[in-house]
């Protein structure tokens, strides 16, 4: 399976595998490529509502049976809402990374370097 098959075409992506939707506030999540590399997710640590996040900086952690990786905010702004469902049931990330497993939403002040689905997928295929 090539990377493009694992990319949701409606979103844009950071090089660190976060997706951003086009709503306001914008929802942030993790790509299926990132989730597949992690394996079964068992723990998610997210910023709290009202917190300030900065594009390109670490704002949380996602931990699986095999590894742990940091969540980088793809945008700068203020956290509007945190998805409690994914904190309660981190396995949602494995089953529905582009839907039910959104992580948090942000009132965006500015965006970091975001890639189109095609650009993001192409970067993954090169690896």
């Amino acid at each position: 399976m090539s990377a493009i098959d694992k990319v949701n075409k409606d979103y844009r992506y950071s090089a660190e595998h976060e997706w951003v939707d086009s709503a306001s506030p914008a929802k942030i999540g993790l790509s299926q490529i990132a989730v597949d590399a992690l394996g079964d997710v068992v723990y998610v640590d997210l910023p709290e509502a009202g917190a300030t996040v900065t594009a390109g900086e670490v704002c949380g952690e996602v931990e699986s049976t095999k590894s742990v990786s940091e969540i980088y905010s793809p945008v700068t702004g203020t956290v509007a809402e945190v998805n409690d469902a994914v904190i309660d049931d981190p396995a949602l990330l494995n089953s529905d990374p582009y839907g039910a497993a959104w992580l948090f939403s942000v009132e965006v002040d500015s965006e970091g370097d975001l890639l189109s689905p095609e650009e993001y997928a192409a970067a993954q295929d090169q690896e």
Partner: protein
Amino acid sequence: MSAPNNSKPTALSSVHERLGASFTDFGGWWMPLRYGSDVAEHLAVRQAAGIFDLSHMGEVLVTGPEAAAFLDYALVGRLSAVEVGRAKYSLLCNEQGGVIDDLIIYRLGQDEFLVVPNAANTPAALAALEGRTGTPDGHTFDVTISDRTEATALIAVQGPASEAILLEVVTADSVEAVKALRYYAIVDVVVETGDGELPVKLARTGYTGEDGFEIYVDAEADPEAPQRLWTLLESAGQSYGLVPCGLASRDSLRLEAGMPLHGHELSESIDPFSAGLGPVVALKSKVSFVGRDALAAIKESGPQRKLVGLANDTKRAARPGYAVLHDGDTVGEVTSGAPSPTLGHAIALAFVRPDLAEVGTELQVDLRGKPTPFTVVALPFYKRER
């Protein structure tokens, strides 16, 4: 995704691809990491059964009139005391007492042993064995060492339903041999593949903490045999809940069972006494073997660190390399860690200062800058009910 040029496929790679596996390079081999959920694969082995491709493991045949005497000299255990048809866990140590590899040795005949090193260590283990066929006092052992790794496929079936599944696939003549096979024993049995009879070596060994089998198949004699056997076991196991399992679940299973993994709990700079494997070293019953002097000295002075189990009631795992803390001081290092799928909380193996190794000792692990409480607990973390 195809195998990188420097990763070897096994005889079963196309089967794993058909099953949709995620692959990883492990010890130079292109191995299935997981097929779907590694937690589900782990739990299937605890509750029913799992099937693993372990063809990356090394297979080294040691034969000849002095095979047993040679292994007594080359390894820390007393292999000459092992009965034909039985197996022993042992270590290949360097002159300083560090562990080059940990291995399973099966005695196939009076003068024939099958030595199984770890995949990544097979070249080093082979080189060390070949380098030990002559002793410093001029004796040359009458042995032949042959590397059968590429010629051998290894399939494991692990879990409480393993025996029932094996009984479904062997010929009527082999049924009693399967039932009578004891833990750490090996026997020749014949599998009825539906496409003819397939002779295999069946061992009751494993790396999961469950009852289970490891099946050695000659892939040189019949390159299709491993795939036929896998497919047969998969379909025979279906009604028992058998699932294909990758290396991710293999690692979490062995960790729960408190079993060391070379490169983590064992290495050329870790001695057996530190790793809790002192009883494996036959200092009393053997006069001469490689590493003996260094190992005797370490036993005499006591190890500088001890391997312990750590646990807490969170799911925040301590990972290899994380510092173990006590009163703000670094007192050790984590070697393996994961959220335990069976127990539902974090478990880890770590080397700590010997005075802090008592069960019940309260320590902390630096989880990426957050000192987090862990308690020293008895090993293994998980023990099956018998």
